[in-house]
């Protein structure tokens, strides 16, 4: 069922194509507009690194407003919410044409591809007019409040509570791992509204303001020093009841939809992503670069390692393409995306391991001649597990593949069909 949406979107493209601008016409129009309106990428400028994040969040709001004014924002979103009502083929063409330009890439995930995607499917008309249009127009940035410190892989075991009080909900609790929440305006927040129901049946999704006197947000510093994640503490945060998305206690359904868009975005198959990351400002080092930098590139052991990682990187692209085809055609279940997820962990981790091996002593101290990037190998290695933790752990993905692709028996869950307040929680 979850796959349907993509299929419908592309069928829609075919069905309606007579009435739509052709992709080629659109491409030509986009090319002209881009060249007249968007700033060109500057080889001397740094993009998409932690260092420039704060600057980019400001710039990208403005860029999104430009796109919106020019009629190129939200290409696959319906016109009634500020989008362009076009097809993924148009989006692909626009992304291709936008390659030489700065684009509001930071708004792609989670604001447009995950939160807006979910709201389009599950939000009320009023919510769509306010938040979806807000996100598309660049007036607003959305983020997700899902994970909690107690939860880990067990999202539905969350403890943040919302109490109905007249026309409002009063929210208390704590969220974490909210990517770039500090730069967002509103969050889709999954909370518990019924403690007597089994865990999946007592949840609700509520839109909350990110910055509020009753909530405290702080950035979480990671082991490599980066801080794109945030955690939030709510103390009697009051939001209007109309911010409820879907029905009360049906939040798991809404959350599943949001997770679907997250997997799609992470897997590279979202129709709501516009523009493509071209460069990270010189910080993307390949294993071959490291091999050359340490002067080992003619060593046979090194050449095998570089050849192997090159093969793995190629295979990763190939398998993402294949699984996307399988899911789009309906031959594969939606959970086949968990296989992409596993590759997206295993293969980059293998790359980090090889880089560490090749970089040798230069991965742990700056050498006199170095420009510092070899030490980045060591710093990056600290976050090696990020690839198998972010967006659900690899262990959960393995459960998914075995249970939803191979249809093996499900793991025993001690909290199934138990009133949530009776579930054991450990220390």
């Amino acid at each position: 069922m979850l796959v349907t949406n993509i299929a419908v979107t592309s069928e829609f493209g075919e069905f309606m194509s007579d009435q739509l601008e052709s992709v080629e016409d659109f491409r030509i129009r986009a090319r002209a507009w881009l060249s007249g309106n968007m700033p060109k990428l500057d080889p001397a400028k740094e993009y998409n690194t932690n260092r420039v994040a704060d600057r980019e969040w400001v710039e990208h709001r403005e860029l999104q407003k430009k796109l919106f004014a020019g009629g190129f924002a939200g290409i696959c979103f319906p016109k009634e919410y500020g989008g362009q009502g076009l097809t993924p083929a148009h989006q692909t063409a626009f992304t291709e044409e936008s390659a030489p330009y700065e684009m509001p890439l930071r708004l792609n995930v989670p604001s447009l591809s995950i939160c807006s995607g979910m709201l389009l499917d599950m939000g009320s008309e009023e919510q769509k007019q306010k938040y979806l249009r807000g996100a598309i127009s660049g007036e607003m940035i959305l983020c997700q409040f899902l994970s909690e410190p107690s939860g880990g892989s067990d999202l539905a075991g969350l403890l943040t509570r919302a109490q109905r009080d007249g026309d409002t909900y009063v929210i208390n609790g704590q969220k974490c791992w909210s990517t770039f929440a500090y730069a967002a305006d509103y969050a889709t927040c999954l909370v518990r509204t019924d403690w007597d129901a089994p865990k999946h049946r007592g949840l609700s999704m509520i839109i909350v303001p990110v910055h509020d006197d009753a909530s405290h947000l702080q950035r979480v510093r990671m082991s490599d020093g980066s801080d794109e994640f945030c955690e939030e503490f709510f103390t009697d945060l009051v939001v209007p009841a109309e911010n409820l998305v879907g029905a009360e206690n049906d939040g798991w359904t809404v959350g599943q939809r949001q997770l679907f868009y997250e997997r799609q975005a992470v897997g590279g198959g979202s129709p709501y992503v516009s523009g493509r990351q071209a460069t990270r400002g010189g910080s993307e080092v390949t294993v071959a670069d490291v091999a050359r930098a340490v002067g080992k590139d003619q060593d046979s052991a090194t050449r095998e390692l570089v050849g192997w990682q090159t093969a793995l990187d190629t295979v990763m692209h190939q398998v993402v393409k294949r699984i996307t085809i399988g899911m789009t055609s309906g031959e594969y279940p939606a959970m086949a995306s968990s296989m992409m997820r596993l590759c997206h962990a295993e293969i980059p981790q293998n790359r980090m391991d090889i880089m560490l091996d090749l970089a040798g002593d230069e991965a742990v101290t700056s050498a006199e001649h170095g420009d510092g990037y070899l030490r980045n190998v060591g710093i990056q290695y600290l976050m090696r597990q990020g690839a198998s933790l972010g967006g659900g752990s690899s262990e959960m993905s393995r459960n998914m593949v075995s249970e939803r692709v191979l249809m093996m028996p499900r793991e025993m869950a001690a909290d199934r069909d138990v009133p949530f307040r009776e579930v054991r929680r450990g220390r």
Partner: protein
Amino acid sequence: MDLELSEDQKLFRNTTAKFLDNESPIEKVRALNKAGGGFPAEFWAQGAELGWAALLVPEELGGGSISGNGFQDLAIVAEEFGRLVSPGPLLPVNTVIAGLVEGAESGPDHSAEIEGLMSGESVATWAVYEPKGHWDPLNPTTTARKEGDNYVISGVKDRVEIGNEADFFFVTAKTETGVANFIVPSDLGSVVIEPVAALDFVRHFATVRFNEVTVPASAMVGTQETAPAIIERMFQVVVALQCAEMNGLINRVFEFTVQWAFDRYSFGRPLASYQALKHRFSDMRTWIECCNATADEAVKAVNNRAENSARLVSVAKAYIGTKAVQIIQDCIQMHGGLGVTWEHDCHLYLRRATTDRQLFGTPADHKRRIADLIGL
């Protein structure tokens, strides 16, 4: 298994699978092994009728494929061969055909040989490996000395598949000025064939000695100038076919192992309910998806003579060669002791996978080739 096969190709796959299922089920493969291995001539003749040796032959010589993508169709056959560890000279015959076709424009006419192979009347194989030699076809120690209008070929080739059955050999040899390929009939007195032992359950190999074998200049395939391109083409063809075959092997082994995990109970629960095993099945499933993806891309690249075909073929061989045997070994582990018995089919698959993995470049060799190809 390519997820984007045309209807024609799906039909072709089904026909091939059904034929193999009828004519060469595993019990027949076992019987063949007991009888000494090799392949039944009848079986190959029927296969040739189904077009197994016609897919790389141009239409003007009576070959071709319905889909118009002959190499993709051939890979389908190779994959089905893997699923049933089929006997038969699918790889050597088609590799030779690829070489003959590749040389046709620049060199002497070999359309008779092509037609013979296509019809199944004759079989042939590439004599390229040399004793104690690693994969280095552009530097053979076997020599071809020009004498008047003839060439005299001297040297030893080994690891020659169907060396014992081949009607002729496609011999890569060193000339005074470079390297060249020759057609050499196997029934000459100066050609001495010694069968050798092999790991595969039915595939045969031989060492072949060319003792001052005189062949006419018209035995050359292509020219010395085009020889490296011919060799590269044959190499890509045979390696991509190995990859397709290994994919067939692992897909089939994985299927029956998953089934076993559902059927087999331990401590009152099916094996498939144990999380440690489930997670390994998940990893295997994911790797198989990767194998399928990369084999498909390699096959397409060879089919389309894509600019990056050399690299994609080596990527596929490095990856699948690494994973295929890992996956089969772990599937054996899932079977417990049963998996390492002669009676269980696992070892037939492992023998074939190991053979494909080791010949025409191990994964390590292909990793190094990738490093070369990316200009490291």
